[in-house]
């Protein structure tokens, strides 16, 4: 169970990007976070595993308080959180297998990491996951030889390799074609169920979000203004979440001019 309480994040001296935000995610829920550009979705996810240092508030995963962990403990704790990135963040010059196995780096010995002698168990697991998303035949290809869609699938598999207690995904389907998107979304949902793994996804495609999520969280200006079942997300709620986007205001003015 992930419990976020009064989470605030301020970059530099500007306005806070997250404002005393509370959020609890449990069990096998797939939670989608939606919101306009700049609402703070990525910041929220990155605060959870402290890639971004929260300004204040508490983040508690299955009893571990994350905000107060020291360097070493944080490293161990991060293994329990899988993360998929908006920009893939693969290591271009390594093969797909190495990229995937890098998700296990927290567990294997330095020597094994250096010589690429991964445990059999890990390799089997990697192949299983790669088959599932359809990239097993690319195991020996270099990551930068793949198309955008394929790259993102590598990113998803890498995160799953950690056997995480929670999975965070920052727009994991942004550059996938709809069928592959569907596969990944259903994979994520299935995993949430099978492994009793809470999954939090930042997503722009509301249709997809509604179809696959157990719960939808709508953010605006660093606050959660909607938190309910997908069915409850209607036209009005959508308007509220995406309304008053500064960009939109300006766009209308501009168009009028």
């Amino acid at each position, binding site marked *: 169970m992930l419990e976020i309480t009064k989470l605030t994040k301020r970059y530099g001296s500007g306005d806070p990007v997250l404002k005393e935000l509370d959020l609890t995610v449990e069990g096998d829920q797939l939670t989608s976070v939606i919101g306009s550009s700049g609402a703070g979705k990525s910041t929220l996810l990155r605060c959870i*595993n402290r*890639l971004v240092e929260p300004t204040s508030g508490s983040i508690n995963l299955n009893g571990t308080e994350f905000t107060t962990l020291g360097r070493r403990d*944080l*490293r*161990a*704790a*991060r*293994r*329990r*959180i899988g*993360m998929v*990135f908006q*920009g893939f*963040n*693969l*290591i*271009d*010059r*390594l093969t797909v297998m*190495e990229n995937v196995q*890098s*998700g*296990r*780096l*927290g567990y294997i010995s*330095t020597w094994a*990491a*250096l010589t690429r002698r991964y445990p059999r168990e890990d390799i089997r697991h990697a192949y299983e996951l790669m088959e599932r998303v359809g990239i097993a035949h690319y195991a020996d290809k270099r990551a930068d030889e793949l198309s955008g869609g394929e790259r993102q699938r590598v*990113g998803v598999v*890498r995160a799953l390799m*950690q056997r995480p207690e929670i999975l965070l995904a920052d727009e994991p389907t942004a550059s996938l074609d709809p069928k592959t998107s569907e596969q990944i979304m259903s994979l994520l949902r299935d995993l949430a169920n099978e492994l009793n793994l809470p999954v939090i996804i930042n997503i722009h495609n509301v249709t997809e979000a509604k179809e696959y999520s157990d719960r939808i969280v709508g953010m605006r200006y660093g606050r959660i203004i909607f938190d309910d079942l997908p069915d409850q997300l209607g036209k009005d709620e959508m308007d509220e979440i995406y309304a008053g986007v500064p960009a939109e205001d*300006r766009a209308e*003015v*501009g168009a009028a*001019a």
Partner: protein
Amino acid sequence: MTNQSLNQTLDHWSRFTLRQRLMRYGGLALTLLIVGWALSSIDVIWAWVWDAPSQMADLFGRMMPPDPSNLPSILEAIWQTVNIATLATMIAVVVSLPVAYIAAQNTTPNKFALWVGRFILVSSRSVNTIIWALLFVAIFGPGIVAGIVAIMFRSIGFLGKLLGEAIEEIDRKPVEALEACGASRFKIVLYAIVPQVMPAFFAVAILRWDINLRESTVLGLVGAGGIGMILQGAIDTFNWPEVAMVLLTILALVVVGEVVSSFLRKKVL
């Protein structure tokens, strides 16, 4: 910004504010001033400059044709030099890696380590080759060991500095991804940094290798021969055709080095 100002469309834009522009002009003026100051010390005798091509031709003319009569001893010396340069470069590369790591702003553990790293690199570079040679001859006795160690110490600064800069230029995102996996520092280096600096690594190592080929003149200083000694000897006795031969041999080696490095780079780029 208010809606008011947005209603009228702007047709003005400049890259910098007035203040920034003044500062930039100031910087430019200062640079020009410094260059001017430096130029002031150069008194060029223009008559000599016009005459330069014929004087250079005099030298190149005397180099022709290259004299291969001493080729066997040149080849032997160059083989020895290659060995020395290769060993010295390899060892220096290994030693310079951790130094580069702590001397790069984005990987250094802390400010103190950063400056320790920089100090090591700068000392290695600033201490004259002659000094290194003298020191190691005193320690190891005359011979190629002293030469190798001197060249090695001299190379660390160069390699560490350039590798450190390559590290500073890496893409941070993969590093972040591995941090999120809970990988240790060392493994992050191994998986996210090493692959990214590989191309620079080969380029820099080969570049230093061929500098070391030429730098092996210091081997003469420590009584260990090498191509530098032959070259120096040929220059001292104005044996220009032999100088030309040595230069051609070095050129051939640099080309070989270039081919090897571009092969390696292609493999990793």
